[in-house]
């Protein structure tokens, strides 16, 4: 199993330039310290060196990031973190902030890759996130655990397919609208456009001209050839043909309705796209990310154009931006739809512009008159829009064009031009019959061209709609399959969480949490729990401590299942998580952790000395390899300092003659506080409860002194020392340990007497052989002995002792 041997931390959060380091040597750790003494900084450092993310800082909120808050504010030096681990064969590997985890290979690389999936650190502030998240966020929070990346890519391909068919439906519908518009306009159809209505309208015109009607539209093409041959018989035909050519072109002028529809669609697409863009929850919008990526790729920049901080790894930044861009699938799909819509409008405008250009040329060819203003003004409006829609205009700009275009009366312009050309044709001699034939010929041409196009486009619409429905159904099946698979997985999570919960709350009619994947929507996860037979949102009925432990159990369930999936990564970090839980349930939690996660290396922090002690006792019974470390003091410049009575003992003993009175009094005071906390815990001596958890000498000494005086065997040996301390421990406060302005400075003799007594008391209560403090034993009843039996103080032997 991979184990952490050492964590070296400098200049990180509350930890200053001197550490201290965590020398775990493969053991688990419980770290005790008051609030604000740097416990969580070790958790931050461990998490960051492994994942390059901080779950306490990198939470997507403005002004919060590791970059801004990771460094110790009193230090000018950059953060330094070095982690040493040992592999299952005993080999050692190290990892520091200068290493790029993505480039690590081999054993360490594989282990780090598991760490990077997260889910091994739980903090008090994140403990309830899973319970309090809305169902969509809850689902998303499990995404790295579910590891459905391959399947989600597969789903995304289906969604792309759905979008493609939807685009094709729209394109074919636009073609249908074009051909329908042409036929309706030229044949003056008031009914819906169909083969029947077109045939009927054309036959009426043929009958009026004294020609037989057609049986089907298939005959129009042959009729058109006949009419063309008939037209060749008329004089002045050359001039008439040119005028007729203009008329034909005028008839084929594309209607503006498809362009208007396209512009309306484009406005909607822009609005939809903008709403998606605004909905992107984290950091920069995709367009800014894309722009930033382009700058980074093209430029030789020293600083990131997005966050203005110097690059530490340009490739990693670019890779991260690309990942975030790829993550916005819906956004990208919407962008593609937007582009399709824009291109459709541009194509329509290009067609209209081209036709207008041809009309102008045909006018010049057929007449010697100046080009009519009506025609020119259309060109002036349309031509600039072709280049404008080469790129995506703003929503407001499209709306404005929609208004301008909607106001155009193309029919009126066509009628005017038709009249102009008609009058010119009328003035040509002997061409009355020609005009009639010419009109029939023109309409035949319109029908041949547009009806065939209409039939083909209608078939394309039907085909695209059918395929779109198939793809849409496929997408629904893919989503359903994912939800069913996820439901099975989250059921396992809930089952495991319930099992762990029952170990903390045995016999209580509460628990039975259920996770249910909602059938509606892309993915959301409902959470309920049972409370005396009622199944509700746990927050509705559970107490605060029951909610806390439920949050803990869900986290642990995911950790356990992840450990089963990746057995080589078994690290569990709990940062001061049992805040509102009573002592009995803490005890159960300790037992549960030691039983269920004994295959993990654990790092547990707490500010509660009672829980620390109870956990220590539980570990003692379990035989697990655990370290217990107490943070005794903290300062901005020095960072945490271990509560180490041995260091204070050595200082007092070795510097009795040379230390200043204040220093001696303070160091002896710390020695006494550490000593008495251990003694009161080991000997079950009651001390007054302090809500702050801070136990000073003035609180600890009187109960111990009272107990010592009642223990005749101990007091016989320790009376002089105890009386000295009782008469001199005031120097601890006078020496400024608690920021008091002293009216009477501590004298050298007073400080020395206090320090000497503290050293002597240490020798009386801590065994030099086994290194343990004396503790109360059951038999012989109430004797005070150390573990190895070298120190023994007998309760019932008055005035004597077998001590030492």
């Amino acid at each position, binding site marked *: 199993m991979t184990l952490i041997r050492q964590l070296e931390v400098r200049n990180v959060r509350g930890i200053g330039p001197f550490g201290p380091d965590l020398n775990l040597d493969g053991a688990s750790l419980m770290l005790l310290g008051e609030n604000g003494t740097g416990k969580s900084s070790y958790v931050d450092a461990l998490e960051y060196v492994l994942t390059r993310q901080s779950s306490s800082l990198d939470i997507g909120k403005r002004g919060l990031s590791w970059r801004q808050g990771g460094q110790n504010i009193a230090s000018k030096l950059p953060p330094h973190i070095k982690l040493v681990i040992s592999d299952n064969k005993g080999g050692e590997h190290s990892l520091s902030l200068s290493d790029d985890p993505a480039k690590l290979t081999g054993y360490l690389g594989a282990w780090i890759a598991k760490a990077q999936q997260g889910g091994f650190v739980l903090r008090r502030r994140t403990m309830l996130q899973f319970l309090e998240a809305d169902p969509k966020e809850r689902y998303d929070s499990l995404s790295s*655990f*579910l*590891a*459905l*990346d*391959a*399947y989600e890519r*597969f789903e995304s*391909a*289906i969604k*792309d*397919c759905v979008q*493609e*068919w939807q685009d094709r439906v729209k394109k074919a519908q636009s073609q249908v609208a074009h051909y329908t518009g042409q036929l309706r306009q030229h044949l003056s159809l008031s009914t819906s456009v169909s083969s029947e209505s077109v045939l009927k309208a054309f036959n009426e015109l043929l009958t009026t001209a004294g020609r037989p009607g057609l049986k089907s539209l298939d005959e129009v093409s042959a009729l058109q050839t006949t009419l063309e041959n008939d037209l060749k018989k008329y004089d002045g035909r050359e001039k008439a043909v040119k005028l007729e050519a203009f008329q034909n072109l005028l008839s084929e002028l594309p209607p503006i309705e498809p362009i208007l529809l396209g512009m309306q669609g484009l406005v909607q697409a822009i609005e939809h796209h903008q709403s998606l863009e605004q909905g992107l929850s984290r950091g920069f919008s995709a367009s800014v990310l894309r722009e930033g990526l382009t700058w980074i790729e093209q430029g030789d920049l020293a600083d990131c154009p997005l966050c203005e901080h110097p690059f530490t790894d340009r490739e990693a930044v670019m890779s991260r931006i690309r990942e975030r861009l790829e993550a916005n699938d819906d956004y990208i799909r919407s962008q593609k739809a937007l582009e399709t819509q824009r291109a459709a409008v541009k194509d329509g405008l290009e067609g209209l512009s081209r036709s207008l250009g041809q009309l102008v040329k045909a006018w010049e060819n057929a007449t010697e008159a100046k080009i009519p203003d009506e025609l020119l003004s259309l060109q002036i409006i349309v031509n600039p829009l072709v280049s404008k829609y080469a790129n995506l205009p703003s929503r407001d700009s499209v709306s404005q064009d929609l208004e301008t275009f909607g106001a155009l009366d193309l029919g009126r312009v066509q009628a005017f031009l038709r009249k102009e050309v008609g009058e010119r044709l009328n003035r040509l001699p002997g061409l009355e019959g020609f005009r009639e034939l010419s009109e029939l010929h023109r309409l035949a041409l319109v029908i041949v061209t547009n009806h065939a196009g209409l039939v083909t486009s209608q078939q394309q619409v039907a*085909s695209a709609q*059918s*395929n779109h429905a*198939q*793809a849409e*159904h*496929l997408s629904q*099946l*893919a989503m*359903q*399959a*994912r939800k*069913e*698979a*996820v439901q*099975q*997985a989250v*059921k*396992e*999570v809930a089952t*495991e969480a319930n*099992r762990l919960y029952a170990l903390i709350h045995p016999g209580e009619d509460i628990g039975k949490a259920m996770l249910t994947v909602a059938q509606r929507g892309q993915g959301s996860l409902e959470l309920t729990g049972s409370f005396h037979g009622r199944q509700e949102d746990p927050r509705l009925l559970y107490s605060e401590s029951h909610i806390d432990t439920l949050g803990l159990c869900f986290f642990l369930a995911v950790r*356990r*299942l992840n450990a*089963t*999936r990746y057995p080589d990564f078994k690290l569990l970090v709990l940062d001061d998580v049992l805040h509102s839980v009573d002592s009995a349930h803490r005890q159960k939690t300790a037992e549960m952790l030691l039983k*269920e996660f*004994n*295959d993990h290396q654990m790092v547990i922090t707490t500010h509660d000395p009672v829980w620390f002690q109870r956990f220590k006792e539980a570990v003692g019974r379990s035989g697990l390899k655990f370290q217990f470390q107490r943070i005794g003091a903290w300062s901005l410049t020095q960072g945490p300092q271990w509560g180490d009575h041995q260091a204070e003992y050595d200082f007092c003993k070795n510097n009795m003659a040379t230390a200043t009175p204040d220093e001696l009094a303070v160091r002896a005071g710390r020695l006494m506080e550490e000593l008495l906390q251990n003694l009161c815990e080991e000997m079950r001596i009651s001390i007054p409860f302090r809500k702050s958890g801070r136990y000073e000498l003035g609180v600890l000494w009187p109960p111990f002194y009272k107990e010592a005086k009642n223990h005749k065997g101990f007091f016989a040996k320790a009376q002089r020392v105890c009386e000295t301390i009782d008469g001199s421990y005031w120097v601890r406060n006078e020496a400024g340990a608690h920021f008091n302005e002293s009216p009477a400075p501590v004298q050298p003799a007073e400080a020395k007497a206090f320090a000497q007594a503290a050293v002597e008391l240490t020798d009386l209560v801590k065994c030099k052989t086994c290194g343990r403090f004396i503790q109360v034993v059951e038999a012989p009843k109430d004797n005070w002995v150390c573990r190895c039996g070298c120190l023994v103080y007998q309760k019932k032997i008055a005035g004597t002792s077998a001590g030492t």
Partner: protein
Amino acid sequence: MSKSQKAPLAVENLNQAAIERFRNLVTNSSTLSKEWREAILTDTKDGIPSTLTKTNLVGKGEGGK
């Protein structure tokens, strides 16, 4: 660790579990056309239908019509 932790878990290969459920749903779907269903069920690579790329699916749709 307790015994229950050693049981096989769905989470161990959720991708594969989801794919298998998807294939079952496709097999039993009466809404999907024969062309689409066969294209998805027969053309696989590494357990994932290789037709499930946009280009291939669009192609299948065109062929089916």
